């Protein structure tokens, strides 16, 4: 099936008739994986965490040579320092995440049943700072990105496993999914137009990466930024490209979007932080 959006809609309708409900997150995910398998039959599923480099051999070689001396390395160290630094009250970020050594990034975003909201890792980090009377970090880049790079690094090779545990969580997931397929901005495009329907095609000189694996390597060091940036910074950039007003990082819209998009990558291995053009 060439057109994924139509596919999703049709599956949704069929499932609706069959069970009186929408397709489950798990069937959405399987459809995602199948779609790309048909589109790029030679690409191994585990490769999708490498974005455009999974599908384009020419840019991959250059990327691999940069990865030998990754520009994000110093930020992992900075992140570790920040993570272990003592607060005024003697605690630290590490005290809020007692299991961090096992790797926790691959379990985010998480559903908070009490507050009925999606909690992303950066949100949890800032909530920890606030609770301890410390100043919160800015969300797009800087200190938060360094801490995320450190935690991401500890999660390398761990299996992405996001859970949608109940009805309320499911509603947030559906909201994020809807966002992904909704046209936005003066240029009138949805995320799905670029990263599903046209993945592998060139938009001017850029090759569009598949959405599968999109969240696995964030935060990312981009040559264009000359620094690390978070996933929500990227969402904002992609919204602006189509002349849509970006949402605030950690807004409900972007947290739900991250929830949906990360669920699609369940089963792949975390490989943060990453390096991209």
């Amino acid at each position: 099936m060439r057109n994924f959006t139509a596919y999703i809609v049709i599956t949704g309708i069929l499932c609706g008739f069959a069970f009186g409900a929408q397709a489950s997150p798990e069937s959405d995910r399987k459809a995602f994986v199948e779609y790309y398998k048909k589109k790029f039959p030679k690409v191994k599923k585990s490769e999708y965490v490498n974005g455009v480099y999974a599908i384009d051999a020419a840019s991959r070689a250059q990327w691999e040579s940069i990865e030998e001396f990754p520009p994000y390395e110093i930020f992992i160290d900075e992140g570790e320092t920040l993570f272990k630094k003592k607060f005024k009250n003697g605690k630290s970020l590490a005290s809020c995440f007692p299991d961090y050594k096992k790797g926790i990034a691959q379990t985010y975003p998480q559903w908070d049943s009490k507050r009925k909201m999606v909690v992303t890792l950066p949100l949890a980090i800032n909530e920890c700072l606030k609770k301890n009377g410390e100043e919160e970090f800015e969300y797009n880049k800087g200190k938060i990105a360094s801490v995320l790079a450190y935690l991401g690094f500890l999660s390398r090779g761990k299996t992405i496993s996001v859970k949608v545990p109940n009805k309320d969580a499911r509603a947030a997931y559906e909201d994020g999914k809807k966002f992904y397929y909704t046209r936005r901005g003066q240029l009138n495009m949805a995320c799905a137009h670029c990263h599903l329907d046209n993945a592998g095609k060139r938009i001017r000189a850029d090759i569009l990466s598949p959405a599968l694996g999109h969240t696995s390597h964030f935060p990312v060091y981009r040559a264009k930024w000359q620094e690390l940036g978070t996933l929500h910074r990227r969402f904002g950039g992609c919204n602006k490209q189509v002349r849509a007003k970006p949402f605030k990082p950690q807004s409900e819209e972007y947290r739900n979007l991250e929830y949906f998009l990360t669920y699609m990558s369940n089963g792949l291995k975390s490989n943060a932080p990453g390096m991209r053009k």
Partner: protein
Amino acid sequence: MKFRVDFSTATPIAVLIISLIFSILVPSIAFAGDEEQGKAIAFDRKKGNCLACHAIEGGSLPGNIGPPLENMKNRYPDKAKLRDQIFDATKRNPNSIMPPFGKHEILTKDELDKVVEFIYTL
């Protein structure tokens, strides 16, 4: 004081130079055909940016999301159909990724007409 004197002599010279430049440029802008202007609008990243998705003769580094734009007169004997596609591509293909240049006022009516004239020469 000296600054003022310099300034007052500089001004007429600048006016002279600018009017000279204009006397050379303006006729060429005014006489350039709609097709020429349409090409500039089509290639401008902030306007049509058609090269993002289409190969067009004379344009470098085109994308390949849409088909190459060529052989237009044969493919669109009715020019109005071509205009419709550029005005709002979702009419023919509801899931089209191509921006609705007219409907969303990405281009003004005048700009769109000129782009149509240019595309029709391909």
